[in-house]
């Protein structure tokens, strides 16, 4: 047995190692955020959100209006596909037969699905939609994002539904309210903040995806109309990717600004998601 002093020294060394590990992770995060702000803030202006990229690669000015619009369109499409399906699936997992075989298998594979590479989802949608319709499209991009959002929404919504007190269910059923009515009018509204948080996190994840969109939306330098979904579509991430691989400083600068806008958007979504949860926690108390 080593001496007490040696044991305490070892304890301090390991605590020091833990603190170093935290710094090793947080310092690069600080650098990433600082670099994105320093290199990206210069070109940030209102027109960056509305203007498309200039036709001349070396020209400065212009913006990622096409990509920002495309990302919003496709994330909205993805949400329309995945939110109803995901929430209803979560209702089955938490309200009907939570320990049954179907629920167990679905829960397991929803977890597995969160680990599937996003580029594979892009390949699938490419084979299922793009090869069939012979065109890259906003539909295909939105569907790919929806598939990526689905397992996140299923699992977070299930967690939210499980937090609804059992007494609330029993009270509604004891009053003679039908099962589906109980779920729609009592349980889902109670779980709404938690579900909203899950949906926002899924949206944040989808908005940052690049690889699947490369094979489905393809990218587009022109502003596509809000209502046009049949042609190649730009995305904020795709424009960052394309511009950052250019040798021209103007395009690289736009890529940094795009990254700043993307990170700010994701941060805002995450903060709103946390605020929704925090408000619910206060309300419960």
């Amino acid at each position, binding site marked *: 047995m080593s001496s007490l002093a040696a*044991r305490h020294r070892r*304890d301090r060394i*390991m*605590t020091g190692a*833990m603190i*170093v590990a*935290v710094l*090793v*992770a*947080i310092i690069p*995060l600080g*650098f*990433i955020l600082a*670099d*994105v702000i320093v*290199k990206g803030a210069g070109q940030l202006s209102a027109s960056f959100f509305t203007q498309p990229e200039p036709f001349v690669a070396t020209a400065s000015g212009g913006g990622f209006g096409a990509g920002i619009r495309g990302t919003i369109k496709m994330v909205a499409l993805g949400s329309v596909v995945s939110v*109803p*399906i*995901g929430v209803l*699936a979560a*209702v089955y997992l938490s*309200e*009907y037969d939570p320990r049954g075989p*179907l*629920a167990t*298998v*679905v829960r*397991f*594979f*929803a977890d597995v*699905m969160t*680990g*599937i*590479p*996003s*580029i*594979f989802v892009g*390949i*699938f949608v*490419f*084979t299922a939609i793009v090869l069939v319709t012979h065109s890259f499209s906003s539909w295909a991009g939105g569907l790919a994002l929806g598939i990526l959002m*689905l397992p996140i929404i*299923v699992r977070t919504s299930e967690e939210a539904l499980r937090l609804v007190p059992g007494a609330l269910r029993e009270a509604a059923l004891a009053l003679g309210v*039908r*099962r*589906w009515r109980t*779920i729609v009018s009592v349980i889902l509204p109670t779980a709404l903040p938690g579900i909203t948080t899950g949906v926002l996190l899924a949206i*944040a994840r989808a908005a*940052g995806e*690049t*690889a699947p969109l490369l094979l489905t939306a393809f990218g587009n330098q022109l502003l596509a109309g809000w209502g046009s979904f049949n042609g190649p579509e730009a995305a904020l991430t795709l424009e*960052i*990717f394309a511009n*950052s691989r250019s040798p021209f400083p103007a395009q*690289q600068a736009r890529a*940094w600004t795009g*990254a700043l806008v*993307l*990170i700010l958007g994701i941060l805002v979504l*995450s903060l709103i998601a946390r605020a929704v949860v925090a408000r619910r926690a206060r309300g419960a108390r």
Partner: protein
Amino acid sequence: MTVLSAGRLAAGRRRARRPADTLFRFATAACACIVLILLAGMLIRTTWAAWPAFSHSGISIVTANNWNPNVNQFGGLSFIYGTLVTSVIALVLAVPVSVLIALYLTEAAPPGLGTWLGYLVDLLAAVPSVVYGLWGVFVLVPFVTPIWQWLSSHLGFIPLFSQFASGRDFATAGVILALMITPIISAISREIFRTVPADERESALALGATRWEMIRLAVLPRSRPGVVAAVMLGFGRAVGETIAVAYLIGGIPNKITPHLFQQGSTIAANIALQFNEAASLPLFKAALIALGVVLFVITLVINVAARLIIQRRGRLT
């Protein structure tokens, strides 16, 4: 009379209630099934689309090292090699750091500070991979290049470090992957460490153990399977990561080399980088889809194994 009509009333209501309830239950069950159908459908549809390549090249897609699409040779072994090498580098760097972070946040940090640091580490997971790639190319590559050169000239007798070729290489891609999987491994490890019962910690401390001894005696032994699962999930994420690696690996096919400071490619990066070239060449395109199927199967196996470990653990505790 009253009893009879009450019974009839109840029966009537039950009959009236049944369709809506049954329908709603059926709808939710159908939505739950969509997850399963989607997974199976993805595998079937992509395998079918990749079939021309599988029947043209057979098993050599994963065993041969000759990726020459212009002469219809599709041996993708080098991509599998690159995927494994970069992911292993990422694990070597990220696992100790992530486990120490998780230990600090659950066992050692002052409660308020721990929560905030936890948010910050989670923030690393919120940074999109395209931003990691952009930052990697313009900031990380210039930063690590002299370090790699120094390692190469001073530790060059170790084959891993010899023959420096470029700052965009297996090693740099591994570093960025390590950053990306650290929040994942540490978040899951944190959950695992939290499930260790307080009385076991307290028993160790009451017997006079220091904090580190308590961690070694009470926390780590109990958590080992869970941490293994966390590491596997991080590995699965590293294997499938596309864009950040596509930026940083160099994108050179057919490179199977022990030298980490040379350019190469991975399965996912190669699909992203070559997809446009393949647009008008059906067999080339099918071969890239086939690589995607290989990637899917690898990550599916990793994720299923990791989730099984976590599930079994959940049942034990």
